[in-house]
């Protein structure tokens, strides 16, 4: 596996955090395998023909829109994404916009697209979009937020004086990693909405689903150490007795 390809294919941690989906599902949903080597003696036993490069935009990788955008045979111009050392824009952060018609306005980050270094700021940097038009009806226009580049188009807002600032990641004396405003030296706290997902606002307020195991049932310790394998233990519990010794066998 080529390391760079691997890096590009990976969906950013903060892009998928809100969806609360397992990585395995995301991988399965975005993968496009056209052909796989059949089982048997092959000089390349695990050869796979699949799509290697994906075009990331405002569609999440597990959605139908993404699949459509990356449908077989559909190519996109190459996108250059500036490498960023550490992601420092989170859902719920207050940012100031540096470009466009909303230049100078401040807003809250609503969505993150880490693969493209994009964020969407709630209600700002909007464009009109025409929907539902047909022969008789000209359609309605709705405002749609457009993504902004975190490297050049937005800046975090210092909560002490509510002005835009550049930041730096530093350690506190307790060893916590925090964002610090380089202008005032104040800490910019990470908002509580970072842990928010589509299923819950905070982990404490999670609404239990009918099939979920109760928290105390999860933490209950029923394990007792015993000098037996799993199979021996289960056989004993089920009352199965088998004293026959397996005849000698050979491994090769």
């Amino acid at each position: 596996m080529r390391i760079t390809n691997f890096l590009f294919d990976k969906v950013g941690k903060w892009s998928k955090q809100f969806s609360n989906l397992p990585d395995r599902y995301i991988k399965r949903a975005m993968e496009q395998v056209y052909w796989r080597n059949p089982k048997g003696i092959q000089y390349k036993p695990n050869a796979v023909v699949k799509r290697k490069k994906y075009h990331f935009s405002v569609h999440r990788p597990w959605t139908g829109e993404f699949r459509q955008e990356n449908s077989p045979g559909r190519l996109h111009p190459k996108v250059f994404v500036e490498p960023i050392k550490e992601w420092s824009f989170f859902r719920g952060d207050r940012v100031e916009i540096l470009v466009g018609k909303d230049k100078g306005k401040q807003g809250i980050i609503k969505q993150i697209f880490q693969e493209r270094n994009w964020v969407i700021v709630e209600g700002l940097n909007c464009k009109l979009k025409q929907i539902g038009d047909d022969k008789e009806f000209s359609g309605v226009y709705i405002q749609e937020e457009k993504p902004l580049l975190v490297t050049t188009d937005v800046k975090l807002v210092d909560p002490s004086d509510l002005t835009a600032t550049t930041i730096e990641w530093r350690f506190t004396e307790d060893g916590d990693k925090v964002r610090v405003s380089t202008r005032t030296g104040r800490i910019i706290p990470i908002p509580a909405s970072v842990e928010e997902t589509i299923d819950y606002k905070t982990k404490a307020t999670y609404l239990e689903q009918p099939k979920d195991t109760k928290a105390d049932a999860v933490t209950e310790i029923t394990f007792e150490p015993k000098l037996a394998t799993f199979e021996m233990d289960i056989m004993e519990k089920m009352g199965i007795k088998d004293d026959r010794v397996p005849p000698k066998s050979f491994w090769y």
Partner: protein
Amino acid sequence: MSTRLYPIYQKGGPQLRVFLPNFWLKLVRPPHEQPPNVVVFSCSMEMTTFDIRNYLEKIYNIKTVDIRTRIHMTKTRKDPGKGYVVKDDDIKYAYVTLPKGESFEFPDLFPKKDDKEEGDDQKALKAAKQGYQEFLDKNKDRPNMPGWFTV
């Protein structure tokens, strides 16, 4: 030994037991019409009739009378662009006969909803469309004025 490896059986050895089967079983609609007490499953390729019987009896508590299996060969197709041949995985079907008097009919897992549930956006779009039509109707009959012109 690994829990998922089937050991070999030798005469005089202990009975082979599977504690954590890797097997799956899918209940499917029968491809052909079956008597009412026959249930059709598609199962993992490694399963034998004995495995299926034990699986249903021990895990699901279902008594069976007879089990037959067949392997359905799936179609091969050529990739339209590249031309290589692709074949879907074969499917093993198990026809399980239940005891006399029991019957099974495949239920409707995706019942059709009678009332069309419209989303909020659909409702809003409908209202906007109606409003636009009313606006056109109101201004339609003014003399020497185009329909779209209004104060």
